[in-house]
């Protein structure tokens, strides 16, 4: 096992009229080759921005990204563009991420044409497209269809085929199933997992759906307001959540049980503005265990058990 991709103190700030919006504020992670890092957090916590920053679709403000030991931040734009054969993305919205004027054939061929994968060899290109459609479960008769003629699940399969077309090793999946209904979600998730087994793909899987992340991830990172609050292997995180925010998230999963009407503990307050955030722990004003020290000093990630990192110095006391 080796680390395929790694970030160090990755930051992405956006300039707004009211100041700097700290969308991603110093994220470190490593993903082992062939494994999946699930990134969870509520809407607006910066998880999608993180995914785009890793691919430099959003130019990071600072920090480092290493892919197979290569420093991506030192690459020029044109060199970075060529990295698309290694790193790909599956988009959230299968309705708007496909050019409505291209047929399925064109959509799948486009990445390969851009990167001149087969030069002028149209037969090889056609064969590859057929293979891809077969792999992702698209019927061959749809090759000349346009995206608006297809349902969400089929469109997302096109998105998967496009991401796979360049044979990348790393794929950022930005909420690939959240726009789909549940039965289709399962199909796409199983497809992604099968592909991982067959091709040894490495995923960064962004979602707000804990049941999805539980299904697909090896390791999970919980984000809150641009910060990583907890990172742990899947089993550890679900059995032994340490950060108050993670615990609140897990408690919010509805439990189907007859008779018992569990009282849902809901977090009070709202997410603070990510524009020019106050110093101290970002979660302090909603945290039931917050104390004076929380508002004063930022909580650094600390390893509380092997591979289990938590950004809360008091998590041992608040169990």
């Amino acid at each position, binding site marked *: 096992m080796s680390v395929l991709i790694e970030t160090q103190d990755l930051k992405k700030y956006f300039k707004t009229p009211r100041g700097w919006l700290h969308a991603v504020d110093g994220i470190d992670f490593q993903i082992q080759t062939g494994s999946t890092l699930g990134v969870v957090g509520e809407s607006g916590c910066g998880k999608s921005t993180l995914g*785009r920053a890793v*691919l430099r*679709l959003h130019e990071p403000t600072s920090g480092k990204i290493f892919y197979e030991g290569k420093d991506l931040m030192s690459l020029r734009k044109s060199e970075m*563009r*060529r990295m*698309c*054969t290694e790193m*790909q*993305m599956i*988009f959230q*919205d299968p309705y*708007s*991420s*496909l*050019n*409505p*004027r291209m*047929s399925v054939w064109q959509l799948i061929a*486009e*990445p390969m044409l*851009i*990167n001149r994968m087969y030069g002028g060899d149209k037969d090889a290109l056609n064969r590859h497209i057929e293979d891809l459609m077969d792999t992702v479960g698209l019927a061959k*008769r*749809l*090759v*000349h*269809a*346009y995206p*608006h*003629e297809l349902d969400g699940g089929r469109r997302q399969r096109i998105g998967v085929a*496009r991401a796979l077309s*360049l044979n990348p090793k790393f794929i950022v999946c930005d909420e690939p199933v959240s726009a789909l209904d549940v039965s289709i979600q399962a199909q796409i998730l199983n497809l992604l997992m099968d592909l991982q087994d067959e091709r040894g793909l490495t995923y960064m899987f962004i979602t707000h759906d804990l049941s999805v992340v539980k299904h697909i991830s090896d390791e999970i990172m919980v984000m809150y307001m641009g910060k990583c609050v907890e990172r742990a292997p899947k089993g550890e995180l679900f059995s032994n959540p340490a950060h108050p925010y993670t615990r609140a998230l897990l408690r919010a999963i509805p439990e189907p049980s007859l008779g018992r009407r569990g009282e849902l503990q809901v977090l009070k307050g709202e997410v603070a503005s990510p524009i020019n955030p106050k110093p101290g722990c970002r979660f302090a004003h909603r945290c039931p265990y917050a104390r004076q020290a929380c508002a004063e000093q930022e909580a650094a990630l600390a390893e509380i058990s092997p591979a289990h990192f938590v950004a809360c110095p008091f998590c041992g006391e608040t169990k």
Partner: protein
Amino acid sequence: MAKVRAAAGAEKGVSQNLEIMRRFRKNRSAMIGLSIFLLICLLAVLADVIVPYSEAITQVKGARLLPPSAEHLFGTDNLGRDMFARVIHGARYSIAFALAVSACSLVISVALGGIAGYYGGATDNVVMRALDVIMCIPGDLLALCIVAAFGTNLGNLLIALIVGQVPATVRIVRATIMGVSSADYIEAAQCHGAGDARIIARYIVPNAMGPVIVNATVNASRIIISVSSLSFLGLGIQPPAPEWGNLLAGAREFMRICPWLVYFPGLALVITSLSINMVGDGLRDALDPKIRD
């Protein structure tokens, strides 16, 4: 049912352009509009074959204000000129102007609006604020001022109408380009390594084209009216050259006793601009990939 048919069409593998043409052909009112417009264009092109230009400007003393007859289909005006010849030859000016102004302002607007919309920020501000200044003055009024200030000739008229058209068209182009540039599929294309040139040519232009072309078509019909309005006011095409607007202006005094002097040029004006509008509507529906059958 529609879905089944769409999938069937998809299987046959019709190209997008053929598909657009097929949808346009199925639109009855668009086809009627197109036929009428082509007929008018044909009449304008063949004007010299149908009636010599001399008929349109020769004044016949004995034939003033004659009602329509077999000899003079549309009657004659107060100077004894054949109205049929004048309306047919007038079409040349009206249509040539509409096409020229429409094409020129489209090219200018796509360039300006494209720059403003794609680059945004300061570039956008400079272009748009400059155009806002022009836009403060109603287009036709501005055209009037330009022609009045620089003199009435065809060149000035052309410039005046283009200046009047451009600001509104730039706004539409810019808004369309901005909408398209922020779409997810542009980001997806970047993610697949596409460069700016490819993104503009394969993603932005094809998706922005629809509204812009439709707008240009609708503008063309408005320009015909504008040319005629200016001519009506004596600032456009000057008599004795016939143009629908100045035909109407000339007919004003005799309207009550000889209404045919107004009917025919007026009707020509209305039919032409209506037919262009019908074509524009049909194009809009045909170019939208989401509207099927």
